[in-house]
């Protein structure tokens, strides 16, 4: 029985990993053909780092992810604090509104934002993509800050104000430290979400400003170049290492 279970898990993991492994192996193939092995080589990795398109879109992806995470964390944390202090009616209204971007299919969010930008004659590009990313990131920040606020003692903020703190001071020195874990989770969530987004970026950017996802999509139409395999391999390894590190750290904290 136990062996059977392991075999089952092994099969599922094989299903998930064989395609990725094949990509990684192909990235070391000296030739361009997918069917023939022409020797081990790092040539595609060299080409990857010299490909201005890929490097540019990597830069765009990372900078958008950082900026979107930063802005949506500020916006979302403030909003969460505000919503938490609201009376019941406006609070539930806000939470419902906040749910809309999360439940809406990506394609509809993308299209509706595209319509907005075209309607208001805002030229699509870097800024519109950033605005779109902040829009879909913020609800998740709120979602991760809210539980921490609920755990907080309700009266500390008022106490701080009574003791003469300005609202800004109380916010920064009383509330913020308490909800910091939620803020950090939210920021990380926002960062990864915008790192990975394709659909919404696809509709809200111009062909000139491509993030990795939209670039990959347009290249996939022309046939996958081995440089893409090299990129996948690198991203996979970085991700795996990061996750293992994070996991190890949390394990150590637990014990």
């Amino acid at each position, binding site marked *: 029985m136990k062996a059977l279970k392991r075999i089952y898990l092994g099969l599922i993991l094989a299903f998930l990993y064989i395609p990725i492994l094949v990509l990684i192996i192909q990235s070391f193939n000296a030739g361009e*053909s997918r069917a023939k092995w022409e020797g081990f080589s790092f040539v595609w990795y060299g080409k990857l780092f010299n490909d201005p398109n890929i490097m540019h879109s990597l*830069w*765009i992806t990372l*900078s958008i992810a*950082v*900026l979107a995470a*930063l802005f949506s964390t500020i916006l979302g944390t403030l909003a969460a604090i505000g919503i938490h202090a609201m009376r019941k009616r406006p609070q539930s209204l806000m939470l419902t509104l906040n749910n809309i971007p999360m439940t809406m299919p990506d394609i509809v969010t993308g299209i509706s934002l595209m319509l907005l930008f*075209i309607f208001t*004659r805002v*030229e*699509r590009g*870097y800024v519109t993509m950033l605005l779109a990313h902040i829009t879909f990131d913020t609800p998740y920040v709120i979602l991760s800050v809210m539980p921490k606020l609920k755990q907080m003692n309700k009266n500390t903020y008022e106490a701080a104000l009574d003791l003469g703190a300005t609202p800004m001071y109380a916010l920064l020195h009383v509330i913020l430290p308490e909800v910091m874990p939620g803020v950090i989770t939210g920021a990380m969530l926002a960062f990864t979400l915008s790192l990975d987004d394709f659909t919404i970026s696809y509709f809200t950017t*111009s*062909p*000139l400003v491509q993030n990795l996802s939209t670039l990959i999509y*347009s290249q996939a*139409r*022309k*046939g996958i170049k081995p440089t893409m395999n090299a990129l996948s391999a690198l991203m996979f390894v970085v991700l795996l290492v990061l996750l293992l590190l994070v996991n190890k750290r949390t394990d150590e904290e637990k014990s």
Partner: protein
Amino acid sequence: MKKMVSLALMMALCLALIPAHAAQEVVNVYNWYDYMDEEVFEIFEQETGIHVNKMYFTTNEDMMLQVEVSPGAYDLVFPSDYCVERMISKNMLAEINFDNVPNFVHIQDSLKNPDYDPENKYSVPFMWGTVGILYNTKLVDEPVESWGILWDEKYADSIFMMDSMRDTLGVALKYLGYSMNSRDLIELKAATDKLIAQKPIVKAYYVDETKDKMVAGEAALALIYSGDALYAMEKNEDLDYAVPMEGSNVWIDPMVIPATAKNKENAEKLIDFLCRPEIAQKNCEYIWYSSPNADAIELMGEDYTENKTINPDPDVIQRCEFFHDIPDDKLTLYNNFWGQVKNAK
């Protein structure tokens, strides 16, 4: 205070993350995939200091929509003939100042003042070519003479069609003996039925992918543009190209400047540069389409003039026709029928 400083530093860092927009002269080029020797742009950049921003589209229909909804984003566009006709009628194009394009003299006289731009105010021809069938001689024994071969069950799951409305509908129309510009409901319906009947034996509907997949030998037959065909034939000698006897589409892709272009003069400089015979030659030898540039053809010599794919015989051209713009109401029909083909199960 320390916190404020670190906050300020963070902000500064973030601002640094925003890609710098250098105050450099640019020209935004919107072109088909693989339709230009990129080195040509590099030479242009070195010569003039104008930076070329490259953007790509897959079909004429995608391109026209983007030019319409993103005013100012593009300075130089490469539409096909019938789209130029449409863009002129919709006032989407700027008149080219031909004083800035002295190299226009190199263009063949027969291609000046074309039907789609009768007074030659808006466009300069870039390349021309035909639509035909690319086939793998190892998989196809018989001669390829008719579009009918694309409907032959023998080649089931070994045919690539084009994911492009006018081209694919046009071929079906031509196969049935109608005009590629048909506006007749019954003819269009017949072509649609033909394509729906063909769908089960089609392997895939591609545009940009076709040539590489044909080189890899993934299908026996493909509907393709002549230049893509030549590119593939260079890489795989089993491949051959034919324009069926029913006739096909012959097209010209001119360069145009959208009315909303922000860098019109730079675009004109680039047009002029691309009309320079040596540059036109370099381009032509890279993308393998037919050049409208008489002096470039002279430079390329016999290799070029003897090639029947680049220079089809006059009787082949005779059988072919140009696409023309379809008025809006009939275009709705086209869109509708194309949707029926694409969504047929």
